[in-house]
């Protein structure tokens, strides 16, 4: 049963060998005296989509934000245990979070484009790394916008303000912006919850395209979305990881009764 480190938190499908991109062991998180996460153990497989579901306040967002050390900015935040990216400690003593975030990107719940042109928004991540070569930058900007399925809509107005875009477009812009940095992992914190159903569908489609090249972890409060989109699903409750496994199995035949209760809507 989940919880003991020796147990396999993820199932392996018969034919594939999958790498663990991110792994957490006995990972706990605290905001001051309040405990937000309790001894979480699991691994996020590479080039798959892993969804984290659970009721509000269960700690899934805290968990996500711990992976790129965005929680460092919250005074009083403290972690225990280990979080590993490709086997190295994310919270290790020599680690510079600035560089970590170039490998692990994030897209937020509400689109948060910068007060700049569309082009500059996408290019920002490159500029701060000191990339100046104009052709390289515009190349990457175009590739990222294509990858985010936004290129055709904005290619004629790259100099226009990012705020002239609709909500769904802004969110795809934020995805393009994150992609331009060429991360290995993309974390999405309820990326479609502020969007209309059509934009949501486009973003879900986008994620399927992206998973060939990136490891994707998504937090969502929308179970149907998790079921549609993800390969693996992890269910959080009150700061603990209750169960994790292949999405189809979790939704059809969960091991834990709490999972079953949540999925069938008995609470949440």
């Amino acid at each position, binding site marked *: 049963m989940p919880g003991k480190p020796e147990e396999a938190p993820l199932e392996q499908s018969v034919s594939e060998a999958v790498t663990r991109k991110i792994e957490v062991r006995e990972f706990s998180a605290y905001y001051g005296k309040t405990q937000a996460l309790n001894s979480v153990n699991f691994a996020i497989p590479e080039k798959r989509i892993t969804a984290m579901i659970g009721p509000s306040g269960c700690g899934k967002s805290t968990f996500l934000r711990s992976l790129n050390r965005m929680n460092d*900015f919250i005074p009083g935040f403290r972690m225990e245990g280990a979080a590993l990216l490709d086997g190295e400690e994310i919270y290790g003593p020599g680690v510079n979070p600035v560089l970590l975030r*170039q490998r692990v990107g994030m897209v937020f719940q*509400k689109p948060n484009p*910068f007060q700049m042109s569309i082009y500059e928004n996408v290019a920002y991540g490159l500029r701060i790394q000191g990339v100046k070569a104009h052709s390289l930058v515009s190349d990457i900007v175009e590739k990222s916008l294509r990858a985010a399925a936004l290129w055709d809509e904005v290619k004629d107005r790259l100099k226009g303000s990012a705020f002239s875009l609709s909500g769904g477009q802004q969110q795809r812009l*934020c995805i393009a912006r994150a992609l331009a940095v060429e991360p290995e992992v993309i974390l999405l914190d309820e990326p479609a919850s502020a969007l209309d159903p059509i934009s949501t569908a486009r973003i879900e489609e986008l994620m399927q395209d992206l998973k060939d090249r990136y490891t994707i972890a998504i937090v969502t409060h929308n179970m149907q979305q998790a079921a549609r989109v993800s390969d693996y699903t992890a269910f959080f409750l009150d700061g603990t990881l209750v169960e994790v496994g292949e999405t189809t199995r979790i939704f059809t035949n969960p091991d834990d009764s709490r999972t079953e209760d949540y999925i069938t809507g008995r609470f949440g």
Partner: protein
Amino acid sequence: MAETSRPAKGLSLYRRIRNVVLGSLTGIAFLVAVTPLLAIIYVAYDRGKEALSLSFVTTMPSGFPVGSEGGVLNGIAGSFILIVLASILSVPVGIWAGLYLWDQGHTRLAGVTRLLSDLLLGVPSVIWGVVGYYVFSTNTGFGFHWGFSGLAAGLTLGFIMIPIVTRVTEQALRDVPRSYIEGALALGATRFQVMRDLAIPAAITGIGTGILLGVLNVLGQTAPLVFTNYYNTGIPHSLVGSNGSVGDLAMQIFIYIHEPSKALHVKAMAAALVLTVIVLLLDMGIRLLAWGSRRYARKA
């Protein structure tokens, strides 16, 4: 069970009267509070109108006693010089301190700094005058020995402005929404890059408004000048040394009103009107700026 008597439901005359009385009182109080503003403008205009003309603001004072003829150009020019000097000192220092408080605001040192900055806001103006006198005008350990001069006064006014600019800068930076900043942090930007590329541009209007508020404050300061510059009926060639005083509009009003000459009193009221109008225009300008930037931000 016996029913204990309850007051009749409904709105008694007493309650209604009480209601109206309170309402009227608030209106009356407001009028009382606001009348002085109107009274000041009216009285200043009434007693000063003889002196008001274009030449009033464009000529220097002359005649005997000095000022009974001519205008207040020395005061206007001097006030301008003082504001520029004060800003040169306070804007860089204040913004720098404000950036520090924003960036490292959770540390204990920053907490102490913020407290001291707020305390400085409450220092009475005479004390600033004394401090300015000892720091700039006289020969104490600080090394400056500028006597009564524009530079001494300008820098003292700068001292007064520093905590204002600091406070406003920190507040404007804090007003930048968290999600906006997180977007950049998540891309792997350093705190410096976030500050330079996102926070400062977003906060710039707030900071500008704050600087103008500081200017508004020092425009009317008279007491510090008494200790560091006093007054000049002309415009000096140099800002330091024995002839380095500048005029100042506020100081001018003070000096003119002190003299027993009727002619000077008229000019004093005219000058007061000029100063009041400048202050009110600046105030309105600040409000427009703040309102305009809020509309701009809402579009985004």
